[in-house]
């Protein structure tokens, strides 16, 4: 073991400057695959191929206009400068596999600090919608939300004067592949229109239809499940599909932008209405009684909420005749959610 650790394995002792440093990037003798001279062109070709295989996505600029996707080519083409020896080419997908036996797992790119800052800036300072930021920067919507949350936490810490682990962050980000932030043509970080595979579609169905029938995606969905909506309604960014449809209909770009804005404002309106309704319902259902010490809230509960066996999570209070199961074997007593 120590022969390996001090020999070929010694390359893993310290991180490779400016690059990732995974097992699959090296051969048996501890030499970088991509640093070898003759295979350079081959890796170039392979990289091209890998990129073609990557999922294709487009980006939308600030006005909601669709522009063709910029792949990570710009970044890939960059060459890492090392102090000793010739410059290293950027790693390809093969080099990003930390487990040599598992070729289906890759270390995927993470957001760089600049990109996180840009996301926070756009959402919190410029007030853009999460949906828009997600489409423009090619970052999933829930990731955008998480970044804003985490950056807000960081700002809070700065305000409180808590020490921030800057050196750790720098060191870790240097070891990981990261998506840089290019202000004018952002690089797509991940595929934003992921369609979750519905449980009902996991089976194969033989469904004969007449030849003359125009059998669409919507119809196929209904065959699987009566409630199953077609893919264009189930993807996260339905508005991108709508934009493309308008474009296909030949609507000019100003018109499209106007339509998009209208749609956005309508969405905002409907959300506000829903929120108002929720509040109204709450005010109607919860009776508040102010005392000098505390506020009592009275709410009607339904006796059926305990479920058929009287043990449902939503049930309220101790129920006569239903013994607790918490002492029974195999009961999970750790919290299920933290609000």
């Amino acid at each position, binding site marked *: 073991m120590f022969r390996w650790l001090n020999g070929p394995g010694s390359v893993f*002792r310290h991180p490779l400057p400016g690059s990732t440093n995974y097992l699959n990037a090296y051969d048996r003798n501890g030499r970088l695959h991509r640093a070898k001279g003759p295979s350079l062109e081959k890796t170039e070709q392979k990289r091209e191929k890998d990129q*073609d295989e990557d999922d294709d996505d487009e980006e939308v600029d600030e006005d909601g206009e669709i522009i063709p996707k910029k792949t990570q080519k710009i970044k890939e083409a960059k060459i890492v400068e090392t102090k000793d020896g010739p410059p290293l080419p950027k790693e390809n997908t093969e080099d990003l596999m930390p487990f040599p036996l598992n*070729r289906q797992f890759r270390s995927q790119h993470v957001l760089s600090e600049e990109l996180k800052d840009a996301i926070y800036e756009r959402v919190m300072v410029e007030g853009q919608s999460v949906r828009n930021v997600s489409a423009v920067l090619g970052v999933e919507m829930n990731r955008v939300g*998480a970044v804003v949350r985490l950056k807000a936490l960081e700002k809070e810490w700065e305000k409180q004067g808590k020490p*921030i682990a800057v*050196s750790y962050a720098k060191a870790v980000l240097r070891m990981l592949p990261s998506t840089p932030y290019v202000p004018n043509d952002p690089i797509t970080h991940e595929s934003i229109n992921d369609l979750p*595979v519905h449980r009902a579609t996991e089976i194969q169905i033989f469904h004969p239809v007449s030849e003359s029938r125009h059998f*669409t995606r919507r119809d196929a969905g209904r065959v699987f499940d009566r409630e199953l909506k077609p893919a264009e309604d189930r993807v996260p960014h339905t508005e991108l599909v709508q934009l493309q449809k308008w474009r296909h209909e030949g609507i000019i770009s100003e018109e499209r932008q106007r339509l998009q804005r209208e749609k956005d404002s309508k969405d905002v309106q409907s959300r506000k209405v829903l929120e108002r309704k929720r509040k109204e319902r709450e005010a109607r259902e919860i009776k508040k009684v102010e005392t000098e010490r505390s506020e009592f809230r009275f709410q009607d509960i339904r006796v059926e909420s305990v479920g058929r066996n009287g043990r449902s999570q939503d049930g309220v209070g101790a129920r006569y005749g239903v013994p607790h199961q918490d002492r029974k074997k195999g009961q999970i007593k750790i919290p299920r959610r933290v609000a």
Partner: protein
Amino acid sequence: MRKRFHGLKRIKLRQSWNKYNLFNLSRVETPKNTERTFFQQKWTAKALTRAYHGETVREKQWTRMFRRTIRSVVPMDHRMLAEKDGSEQAEGRGSGLEPPPDQKPKPFPRTPYLNMTYAPTERRLDTAIFRALFASSTRQARQFVVHGYVKVNGKKMIYPGYQLNPGDMFQVEPDRVLYATGAPKDKFERRAGRKMRAKYSKKTSMAEGSEDAEPQTPKLDPPPESTSTDKTPKETLQSLLSQAKELLATPSTSLTAKRKQDLRAFQRTVRRTLGRPATLTATSLDSQLGEIVARMTTARKAQPASPPSLAPEVPELSTPELQAEAATLDSTQLKTLRDALNDARENPVDPSKPYATPWRPREWMSAFAFVPRYLEVHQRVCAAVYLRHPVARPGLAEVPTPYGTEINTLAHNWYLRRR
């Protein structure tokens, strides 16, 4: 801890950054399954994969967690969705038109569903902490949780088996993270820490005897924020200088030659700055430095565009002392000064810490460093958000497992309970 956690004879891969584990990872092979019964194959596959995934979870618990349904997604192209309604797939003889041979689309990569067998274990809090690179092993992550260094959604969570829900944010105490991921102290650093602790305890005992003394922190340097506020800039610089000296004096092998050179350059520059009393009285050194540095960067930016504009750039400084300062220090010196000053602020020498200071990542870490996509990690505050459950997508499974599809399939088969 069981015996031979990282065995060298019978290879068991573990969720840890240990060098033994790295060695095992470098030489592990898929077991030869010729002339073995299906049961034997499944048994081995189960044993190998369970040694990696949730080995602290008892088998009964895991079989309850196991789900045969596997989450997956398909990335959709919104252009395709807008332009086609799906009826084109029934054209021709019923299965879509045959494209001309030169325009044949590339075959869609297969979705490695069965590599997702252990997806439920990735929901566990301790595993998520390890995946977010906040601990060097799942066992250490578990310890952090149990010892109360971890918060979920801002509340302390002491159960390592807590199943994260999508949207949950977990935080680990940054000092623990630095300890877990940082290089360990060498014996000189340990001795320095011991000495300091002894001094501190003596001081406190004396203070207790005399009167109600305010509690003194054992820290040698104040935290980076307070450096600039409660000390004069001169003192700050002096303390930084002494720190650098101390660092160079220690016979530790951990300092690289480059870093030593940087430190020496930094010492020189600080001494020069300290030698000018006139400037120190006028403004705070800190802001002065900041201003000079800012000036230097703007000047450098302006240089390629319009070289003659550089000459009036320098005299625009607020005070004549600063002007003189900018004139005397050249750009490389300033850069060194700035870098070293920043570095020393962010990453001070502090013998009271349980890790080697200034902090540097531990050895062998880089081979294990990856962050799966279902987590969004913010390293600066040592917090992460569990975005969603891991999913499989064409050509890619999000569950980090060291074994390939073959072994995972066998393991999945084992837990289907039809042996």
